């Protein structure tokens, strides 16, 4: 029978069990790396560096995980903090602005060679909306969980998800008509 996250965390806490922690990494590496790839605008190398940092920090601070939230939610929070610190270093915290998004919707500016799909539409969203949509719509977090991960008010999360969704729908509709 496969061990649950709680069992594996208990083993790490009790015996510093590296094998148990490796199992946790194996279980969550895909979602954490996927989220970071989306946040870093598909820079896979940077995303993987941040994912490694995320798991090492998680190991160092595992005593602060009290099991009130899901282990994955706790990991997302660490991953988002790692990303924010890196973005601050690189001064890239600000996402692509609204005028750029509008330009993408303009049929005159559409490059037919571009692959216009949902993944690309996501990349056009400003960071705060993209992050909220990724956490809530793609990774299945509740608004409340996302507000804890992002450390922003619940209402702001709901607004960001709503606006992000609207923009995605508009982008997809605009591309569908071209």
């Amino acid at each position: 029978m496969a061990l649950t996250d709680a069992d594996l965390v208990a083993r790490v806490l009790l015996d510093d069990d590296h094998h148990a922690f490796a199992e946790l990494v194996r279980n969550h590496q895909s979602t954490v790396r996927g989220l970071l790839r989306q946040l870093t605008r598909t820079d896979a190398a940077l995303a993987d560096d941040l994912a490694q940092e995320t798991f090492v920090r998680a190991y160092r601070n595992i005593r602060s995980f009290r099991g009130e939230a899901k282990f994955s939610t706790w990991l997302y929070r660490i991953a988002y903090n790692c990303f924010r610190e890196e973005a601050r270093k690189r001064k890239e915290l600000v996402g692509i602005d609204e005028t750029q998004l509008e330009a993408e919707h303009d049929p005159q500016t559409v490059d037919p060679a571009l692959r216009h799909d949902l993944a690309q539409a996501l990349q056009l969203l400003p960071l705060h909306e993209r992050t909220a949509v990724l956490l809530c719509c793609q990774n299945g977090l509740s608004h409340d969980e996302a507000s804890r991960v992002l450390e922003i008010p619940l209402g702001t999360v709901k607004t960001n998800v709503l606006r992000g969704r609207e923009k995605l729908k508009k982008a997809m509709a605009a591309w569908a008509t071209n």
Partner: protein
Amino acid sequence: MGNELNIDEQLQEDRLDAKLRDEVPYIDDAGFTACVVQQLPSGRRQPRFARAAILLGVTLLASVIAYLITGGGAFLANAAEFLVAMPFASVCAIALLSGLLVTAVGTSAAVIKAR
């Protein structure tokens, strides 16, 4: 009419969420876990047997010191004599009270740890 619009919007949102979830590819581990494990700090705490050995050693040392300080353990002989001289009912009562005390302490420690 308004309700139909709401239902339509909800359906659109559900479809969008489903599509977003479908778009997530599984990222193959490809040595990622091994790389993370290599970076983990090791040996924050002593292994279990070392902790047990230290505890046992300290207990033995404390016992020897107590034996020497109390004049070769004369207090043990005195206590044994005292217990033998006591009425049987009193010995049973002391044993019962000691058992209850140990059980209460153990239970509260377990409850605190489980929280």
